[in-house]
């Protein structure tokens, strides 16, 4: 049974699927830089066949340990990721970093429990998981049964910056103010000089607003100034040029902000705005029609009392 992600996450917003690619036609795991691997997310809605493996997941192998960045969309997905890691190294997974709380990124956490890693998240991630975890689990549970998995709250919280050392391989974590969600983390693989952006970066697929529109615009401006040349988006190709790959997203977000501000000033009611705003962006993003309405709603909520 297919469940449209929009249906699953209309209460919560999410990072969502790209259009359909041939399922597993090629190995979804690629080494985008020495020791940095990305499991490319299938571009579909969550269903039994894809096990909600629809977001990009990453792992970094150091000399002593492995860090996972986003454990997957379901326990089954997490187990597949864990196998992919085990196929490449005997080193233990010591860290599981959750870039934010959306199900396609975190429901794989349970699969890593036997390794007893430290689960790491933004200081506000527990709040997000506590309020949404149950709802996500129910929705995913309906599609995947016991393969859905459950949410694992972070044992270590990041408020500002933090560092993980995998043995000659350092990851720098940054906790951001509200942007895509209220609890976004990005990771810089210092050795590879690559930004693992989580869902702060959507490429090709329409972004989903579940935090703060103005905040997201500001965070992207900051991140764009980083002296890095590549990034791993939460959805999109496994590796993209930085900051060029963020430009369409920045354009989308600023256009949304400006159009919504205008609409509010012109007294356009919300019910009309959800279908009229953003027409100029429509052709550039997959699944635009499924998520634009929600993005407009969230932007109204934020900007009406600006």
């Amino acid at each position, binding site marked *: 049974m297919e469940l449209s992600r929009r249906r699953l996450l209309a209460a919560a917003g999410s990072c969502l699927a790209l259009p359909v690619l041939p399922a597993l036609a090629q190995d979804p795991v690629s080494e985008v830089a020495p020791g940095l691997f990305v499991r490319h997310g299938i571009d579909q809605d969550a269903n039994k066949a894809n096990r909600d493996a629809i977001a990009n997941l990453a792992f970094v192998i150091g000399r002593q340990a492995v860090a996972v960045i986003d454990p997957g969309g379901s326990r089954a997905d997490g187990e597949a990721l864990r196998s992919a890691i085990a196929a490449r190294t005997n080193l233990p997974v010591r860290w599981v970093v959750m870039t934010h709380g959306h199900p396609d990124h975190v429901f794989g956490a349970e699969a890593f429990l036997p390794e007893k890693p*430290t689960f*790491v998240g933004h200081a506000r991630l527990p709040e997000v998981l506590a309020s949404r975890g149950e709802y996500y689990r129910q929705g995913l*549970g*309906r599609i995947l049964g*016991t393969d859905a998995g459950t949410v694992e709250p972070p044992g270590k919280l990041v408020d500002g910056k*933090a*560092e993980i050392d995998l043995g000659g391989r350092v990851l*720098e974590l940054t906790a951001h103010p509200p942007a895509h969600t209220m609890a976004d983390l990005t990771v810089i693989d210092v050795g590879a000089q690559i930004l693992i952006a989580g869902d702060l970066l959507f490429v090709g697929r329409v972004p989903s607003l579940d935090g703060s529109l103005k905040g997201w615009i500001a965070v992207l401006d900051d991140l764009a100034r980083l002296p890095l040349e590549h990034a791993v988006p939460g959805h999109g190709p496994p590796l993209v040029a930085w900051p060029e790959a963020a430009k369409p997203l920045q354009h989308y977000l600023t256009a949304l902000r400006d159009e919504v501000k205008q609409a509010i000033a012109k007294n356009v009611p919300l019910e009309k705005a959800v279908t009229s705003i953003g027409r100029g962006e429509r052709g550039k993003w997959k699944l635009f029609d499924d998520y634009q309405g929600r993005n407009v709603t969230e932007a109204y909520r934020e900007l009406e009392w600006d």
Partner: protein
Amino acid sequence: MKAVLVAAVLAASVPEPSGYWTGPNQGDTPDTVAGATVIHTALLAKLIRRERPVLIDVSPAPPPPPELPAGTVWMAPPHRDIPGSVWLQEAGKGDLPPEAEDFYRATLERLTHGSKAHAVVLYCHPKCWLSWNAAKRAVSFGYQQVYWYPDGIEGWQGAGKPVAAAEALQPG
């Protein structure tokens, strides 16, 4: 400011507390409950077909916020669980007040027709201590065939099994 994160070793599976759990409802639960059998969905479905056990859902329902003005019409949102269950919202508490304990005991007595050998299944949600407590308590009442279903309503529903609206059983 940089801080070095120290690898924290998570505990092995949660040990059974000696008494009842009185901490937050949600959390990692033990793998066992002494005196009862842990059961999962497939076997539970078989048990239901074969033996018609007493099914008790001890999920909590959020109480009305105390600040609501007098006279506000409050109707707890529909609660759906394993068909044929009774819904005893209080029975999973660790520190059970005497009236609630009596009610639990009496309800079990009634539903098992006074037979301590009758199969009884306790459940609530995944990672929820309430059903663990309720199973332990049923064992303490002398029931010999107590099952604890830790997968809960979501596990049942997630396996594609139907759920039905439940009516809360209250004393009085």
